[in-house]
C-alpha cells in the first residue's frame, strides 16, 4: 500500500483551523472521519476515532467505549459554562471510514459508517464504491458515531457487519487505487459520473495540495460542490515490481 496523495480543504478559508475532518495513515491502514458541524467538538472526536482505527481496527462496543473515555478526558464538565455543558451533553458526531489491507488475500477491508466514501478504481476506471453507490444517497441522514453511548446502539445490532463492511478483492485489477473522500467531494464525484462526466481520472491525477484546493474552490464557485470541509486520500494497492521492493 502506498499513499499517493492526502489533503484537505476547509469549508471556510477564513477559519482554516476549524476543519472538522480528520484522517490518519499507518502501514496497511487508513482512517477518514468527518465530524458533524452541529457538534460540541467533532474535530477532537474525529481525530480520536481515526487514531484508534489505525492503531486497532476492530470496532465494537468496547472499542467505542475506550474512544469515548478518551474524549471525555478532554473536558472538565462541572466547570464548563451552561452552554458548553449543554452542548457537551448533546454530544459530538462523526463518520468513520476505515481501510485495511489484507496482503495475504490480495483484498481490502472497508468499514463505512456515515457518508464518507471509499471508491475502488482500476487506474482511472471506477470499479466499486462503499458505503454509497448513488449520489442521491447523500440526501439521507447518515448514521454517525456519537460520544453519547445511547446513540451508538446500531454498532451492536446483528446486521452491523453486513451493513457497514465490504471486502474488495483486488486480484486481477491492474492498477488498484482507493480514494477516500468526505461527503461534499464524494457526492460531487458520484453525481458527475451519473451525469456522464466521470471525474475519477481527474481525482487519480491530483498530486499536490494546491491542485486539490483549486479543484474544490472552482467547483464551489460554480455551485456544483456543496461548501463543506473536503478530504481526499488516494492510495495505490498495486503490487510492487521486484526492482521497487525495499532492500532486505
Amino acid at each position, binding site marked *: 500500500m502506498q499513499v499517493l496523495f492526502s489533503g484537505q480543504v476547509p*469549508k*471556510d478559508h*477564513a*477559519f482554516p483551523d476549524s476543519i472538522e475532518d480528520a484522517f490518519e495513515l499507518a502501514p496497511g491502514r487508513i482512517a477518514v472521519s468527518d465530524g458533524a*458541524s*452541529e*457538534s*460540541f*467538538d467533532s474535530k*477532537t472526536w474525529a481525530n480520536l476515532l481515526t487514531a484508534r482505527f489505525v492503531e486497532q481496527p476492530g470496532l465494537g462496543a468496547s472499542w467505542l467505549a475506550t474512544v469515548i473515555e478518551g474524549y471525555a478526558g*478532554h*473536558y472538565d464538565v462541572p466547570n464548563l*459554562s*451552561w*452552554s*458548553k*455543558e*449543554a*452542548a457537551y*451533553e*448533546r454530544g459530538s458526531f462523526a463518520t468513520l471510514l476505515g481501510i485495511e489491507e489484507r496482503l495475504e488475500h490480495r483484498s481490502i477491508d472497508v468499514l463505512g459508517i456515515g457518508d464518507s466514501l471509499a471508491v475502488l478504481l482500476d487506474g482511472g476506471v471506477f470499479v466499486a464504491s462503499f458505503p454509497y453507490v448513488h449520489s442521491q444517497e447523500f440526501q439521507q441522514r447518515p448514521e454517525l458515531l456519537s460520544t453519547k*453511548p*445511547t446513540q451508538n446502539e446500531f454498532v451492536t445490532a446483528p446486521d452491523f457487519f453486513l451493513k457497514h463492511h465490504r471486502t474488495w478483492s483486488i486480484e486481477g485489477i491492474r492498477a488498484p487505487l482507493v480514494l477516500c473522500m468526505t461527503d461534499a467531494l464524494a457526492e460531487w464525484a458520484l453525481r458527475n459520473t451519473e451525469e456522464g462526466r466521470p471525474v475519477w481520472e481527474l481525482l487519480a491525477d491530483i498530486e499536490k495540495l494546491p491542485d486539490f484546493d483549486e479543484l474544490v474552490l472552482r467547483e464551489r464557485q460554480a455551485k456544483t460542490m456543496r*461548501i*463543506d470541509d473536503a478530504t481526499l486520500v488516494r492510495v495505490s494497492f498495486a503490487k510492487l515490481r521486484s526492482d521497487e521492493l525495499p532492500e532486505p
Partner: protein
Amino acid sequence: MPYTAAIDRSSPTAFLFLVDQSGSMDDKMSSGRSKAQQVADVLNRTLATLVTRCTRADGVRNYFEIGVVSYGGNGAYNGFGGALTSSILHPISAIEASPLNIEERKKKMDDGAGGVVEQSVRFPVWFEPHASGGTPMRQAITKAAEELVAWCDAHPNSYPPTVLHITDGESTDGDPEELATQLRQIQTGDGTALMFNLHVSTSGASPIEFAASESILPDAYAKLLFRMSSPLPEHLIKFAQEKGFKVSMESRGFMFNADAVQIVDFFDIGTRASQLR
C-alpha cells in the same frame, strides 16, 4: 433556489420572535399553566437550544441573530431585558452571555442501561411571562418589519430572516394582513423573509397544523392568520415530515388552536434554518 444559503459566521441568519402579551394570555391551558407561562417556557427552551446548536468547545459561533418583540398593554417593545435591551436583534453569543438568570431544573435521562436517572440541568431564562392590555398586532409587525429591513440590508447574501409569531387573539389596532404581506416581501438574495404564525388556544378544539388551504379553516380569523403565513420551504417540509406531520408543498407555517405540544413543535420546526457550516 431560495432558502439554500449556507449559514456560517460570515453569513448568519436571524430569528425574530413576535410574542403576544395581551391580557388574555393569562388564561390557563390544559397543562394548568397560563398561555403566557407556557409560551415563555418554550421560548426560553428554544433560545437555549439555538445557543447550544452554536456552541463549540472553543466558544459560541455567531450563526444566528435573535430578537424578541413583545406586544400588549404597553404597545410593541423589546421582549428582552437586562443587557439585551439596547437593541432588538443580537448575535447569539450575546444572548448566551446575558440570560436574566439561570435556574436549576431536573431532567429525566436515559442511564444507558435501560433505566432512567434524574439529572440537574441549568435552565437559562431570558424571557418572562407577562399578560396585560390589548393586542396591538399592527404595531408589532411594523416594529418587526423595521428591524428586518435593516437586517436584510446588512446581510444581503444570508438565508432570510424568520419571524415566529405567537398570538391568542385578534388584533386590536386594525387589520394586520397588509403589513404581514409587506413584511414577507422583505428579502435577501436567498429569498423573502419567512413569517410563521401560531394561534394559542385554551378552547380544547382540535389543533390545525401546517394547513395547505384556507377552505378547511373554521373561521375568518384562522383564514387571516393562514394568509399572513409563508409557505414552508422545502427543507422545513422535510423536517416537519420527519417529525410526523402531514405536510405538502402547499403547507404554510401556521398552526391554529395550538396546545403546549404544538407550541414546542412550532418553535422547533420554525427555527430549523438550512444547514450550519
